[in-house]
């Protein structure tokens, strides 16, 4: 069974979703929780069976689909994707478990299960077309979640979300077709397999164009600075569960794809575009942090802060060294946990008051102490307090980029302080001071159902903040092999210099020890 555990992980939720149509709607929530628990159990089993010492792909499965055109169903997992898969399974579970009263709960749960299929699929796909299939399919459930359960502007928000991403991915598809064609020219065989593409060394000017084509698709998904305009609408209108999944998992598809595609396929182009992208990332960090400070809606604050932190992930990715990339992957998980938790927390208060305006609140710490504590913890984690999960990731990302540019890293570091300002300000407005609004007088504190989601997230936040090693080690192994691959593949002087040669460094160490 372990041989095809990845396929089971992908298609089990889909099958369960189809069967879900026959479940009576009163039993639907229990069914959803049961399915998601099994899926999460399978994901944990995958983690357990995963060999931490292996850097390459594990549990590879291969089925021929369209061999004439080089499209095959190839999936596998390595240290980079493993934890995002576990996170996806985890968030679907707590998402369904803590689902508040929604209309058409049956449709919602079936949609979430379908969404889970696409999320797992994206992160295990090792064939560009299979990746593209899941990447595009993930838009449909999200479109429906935002469009059917969202706020007043939900249709505009969902259509904007869909079309923006769809347009970007089509440009990426053209890039993929080019890539396959170049592979065909070089070898005489059509192939869309990523591991085959890794072996292909392209001239730099080709790399630049292809990098740009892939960049459009990925940057819109992340979303990076000038392409981020769909996200505040999507978050603003989406129901809580939609925002949680969107922020925790779906946005990670973009940053993950940068590491899976852009860096190893086009190392020279990645070096060439390193500084422009880093500057975009810093603009993204600073600008969205400032916008977040100006918001009156607490959900928008969380949304913009989420974009801001995605900037740090991009910065770490484009450090092009082991520290930076490891840090950015770790930060993806951290960001998933923390921003997911923050959106859940905003959902808690929205369910009680049906408003997200900070001016309506104030002094909530008096009536909802447990809520205030958890919110405070997550806010601290979001700001990047040491001993919380975000700190590890941010620190490593910035450390990585420090080796490339001191000034830009300093700027990014300052921007994180801005992050502290708006988060603390928002916290103060909501929780401290006198209880002024009478409507808040009798608010109940967090319920058991909400704690089911929030307690595990709090534990993870602190546990991985203090002891990140179990996750960092496998990530590090896989990242080292990717960085080495990038160094070996790069052709330009600049890239050779910027991307460290790990084999040589390791060689130096051993030769020194020999002396």
């Amino acid at each position, binding site marked *: 069974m372990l041989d095809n555990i990845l396929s089971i992980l992908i298609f089990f939720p889909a099958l369960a979703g189809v069967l879900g149509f026959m479940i009576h709607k009163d039993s639907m929530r229990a069914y959803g929780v049961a399915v998601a628990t099994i899926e999460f159990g399978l994901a944990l089993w995958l983690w357990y069976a995963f060999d931490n010492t292996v850097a390459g792909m594990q549990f590879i499965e291969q089925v021929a689909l369209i061999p004439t055109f080089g499209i095959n169903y190839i999936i596998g997992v390595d240290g980079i994707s493993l934890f995002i898969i576990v996170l996806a399974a985890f968030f679907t579970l707590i998402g369904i478990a803590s689902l508040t009263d929604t209309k058409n709960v049956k449709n919602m749960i079936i949609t979430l299960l379908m969404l889970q299929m696409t999320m797992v699929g994206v992160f295990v796909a090792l064939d560009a077309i299979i990746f*593209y299939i899941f990447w*595009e399919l993930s838009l449909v459930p999200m479109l*429906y979640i935002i469009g059917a359960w969202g706020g007043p502007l939900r*249709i505009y928000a969902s259509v904007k979300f869909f*079309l923006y991403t769809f347009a970007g991915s*089509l440009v990426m598809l053209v890039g993929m*077709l080019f890539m396959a064609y170049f592979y065909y020219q070089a070898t005489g065989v059509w192939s869309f397999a990523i591991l085959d593409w890794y072996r292909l060394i392209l001239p730099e000017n080709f790399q630049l164009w292809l990098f740009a084509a892939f960049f459009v698709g990925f940057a819109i998904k992340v979303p990076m600075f000038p392409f981020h305009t769909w996200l505040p609408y999507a978050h603003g209108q989406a129901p809580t569960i939609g925002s949680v999944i969107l922020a925790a998992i779906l946005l990670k598809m973009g940053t993950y794809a940068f590491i899976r595609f852009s860096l190893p396929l086009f190392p020279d182009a990645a070096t060439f575009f390193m500084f422009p992208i880093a500057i975009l990332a810093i603009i993204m960090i600073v600008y969205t942090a400032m916008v977040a400070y100006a918001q009156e809606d607490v959900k928008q604050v969380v949304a913009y802060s989420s974009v801001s932190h995605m900037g740090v992930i991009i910065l770490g990715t484009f450090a092009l060294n082991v520290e930076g990339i490891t840090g950015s992957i770790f930060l993806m998980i951290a960001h998933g946990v923390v921003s997911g938790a923050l959106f859940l927390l905003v959902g808690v208060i929205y369910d009680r008051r049906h408003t997200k305006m900070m001016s309506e609140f104030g002094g909530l710490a008096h009536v909802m102490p447990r809520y205030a504590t958890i919110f405070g913890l997550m806010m601290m984690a979001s700001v990047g307090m040491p001993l919380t999960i975000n700190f590890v990731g941010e620190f490593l990302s910035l450390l990585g980029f420090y080796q490339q540019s001191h000034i830009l890293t300093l700027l990014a570091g300052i921007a994180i302080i801005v992050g502290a300002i708006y988060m603390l300000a928002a916290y103060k407005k909501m929780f401290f001071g006198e209880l002024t609004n009478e409507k808040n007088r009798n608010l109940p504190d967090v319920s058991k159902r909400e704690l089911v989601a929030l307690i595990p997230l709090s534990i993870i936040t602190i546990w991985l903040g203090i002891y990140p090693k179990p996750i960092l080690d496998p990530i590090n192994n896989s990242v080292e092999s990717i960085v080495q691959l990038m160094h070996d593949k790069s052709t330009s002087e600049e890239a050779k210099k910027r991307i460290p040669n790990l084999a040589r460094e390791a060689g130096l160490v051993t030769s020194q020890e020999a002396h």
Partner: protein
Amino acid sequence: MLEPVNISLESLNIVTLYPMLIPVIGALLILCIDIFKGGLDRTLYVAITLLVLFIDFQTLLSASNVFATEGTVVGVFDMMLIDGLAIISQFIIVGASMFFIPLALSKKQFHESSYPEFFAMFLFTIAGLQFMVATDSLILIFVGLETSSLAVYTMIAMHNRDKSFEAAVKYFTMGALAAGFYSFGAMVFYALTGSVEINQIATVLAANGYADMGYVLVGTVFMLAALGFKVGLVPFHTWAPDVYEGSSAAMAGFLSIVPKIAIFVVAMRLFEFLIHSGVIWLEIVLYIVVVSTMTMGNIWALVQSDVKRMLAYSSISHAGFVMAAILIGTTQSNSALFLYWILFAFTNLGAFSMLWISRQKELPHGQTSDHSYEKFSGMIQTSPITALVMGLFMLSLAGLPPFALFWGKLYIMSSAVTSGYTVLALVMALNSAIAGYYYLKLIVYMFMKDPVDGATGASFSSNASLALKAIIGFAVIGTIFAIIAINPLLEFISAFVYNSGY
């Protein structure tokens, strides 16, 4: 005193005519049955039509075996040309027709299906289209084109609504103009080369190095206009939305698939050598037409308020996509054309059948057209399965993977990339994104809006019968599981296209 002509029957190779003769005989049979005993039920005629098409399909299978072993076959004074293109396109024509004709068995009986002549016309149409694709001669193409067109005009008018008459007359007028263009274009080529056979024309033109460039251009433009009218290329598309709106949904679906593939094959035969002649103008003319068809079709589709009109414009845009394959003109792109059209046939069959099952005899109060977007509001709440199926077809039309049409788009875009048409590939990609909007619009109405007050789901499947549901089931399976069929299809098509020299 004329010499008696002595021809042995073997040299005629009558077997090349069998696939076309079978529907003609079937049509005559239907008319004979009606003479002997009138007033028979439509089920009888549907069954006979299906059986005739089935036999036709069998002869095509044997023809494809002959092609696979012996290569291209000519017959009847070299008028008939049975090559790979002819066989694949006839498979599509006959196969798709087999799926469309059971749509006449709707729950409510509409006017056209009470006439046996309707089914005879249907078979004549198919025979005409089969003649068109299985010949190299401009004259026989013309005969086939007019046979099928005249039958189609009548079939549209038989729907017996004011709008159907309007549609039929409009289509007839435009079709007559196109016929004029066609004969003029053919005349120019005949005057230039002294032949009406496309391969002869190509040889002669290549031999004199396209000396009379101006006339070739005139001939090409007239031919493009004539064929463009028939497939609805911009700017010759104006009839399409009105005709689709006026015809029954089943008929509109048929129009969007079956006649067009025949025209594409003719266009492929004719334009292939013109584009590869090295004369840049011929390519530019086609390039402009292709890009404007894709883009303008999409942009007009954005502003439609009726689903059927939207699908009409979307069909125009899809036709532009497929013409791009002819423009690219490599073996890969020509195979992509057929692949695309087979997948498109499944999806569009489904989409139009879904409109057909929601057809009401009388328009409800306050509704101005049969299939306005508002009609579909909140469908997920009143009839969820129908909404899901319709949504599936919309997503497939939008080119969302892994549904059927995505693979066609992928392969056409790949062929553009492979032959250096990078800009064209990007135009296709962006057009798919634009197209996403109007397909999404229907999904928004179905899934995200609330139902109109007092609406029940009953009207969405009021015209559904077992036959229609079965057809839709086929289309759903074909759309979802297309991924399995791509590899064998691609191998088959590529081999046939390659062996025909395209």
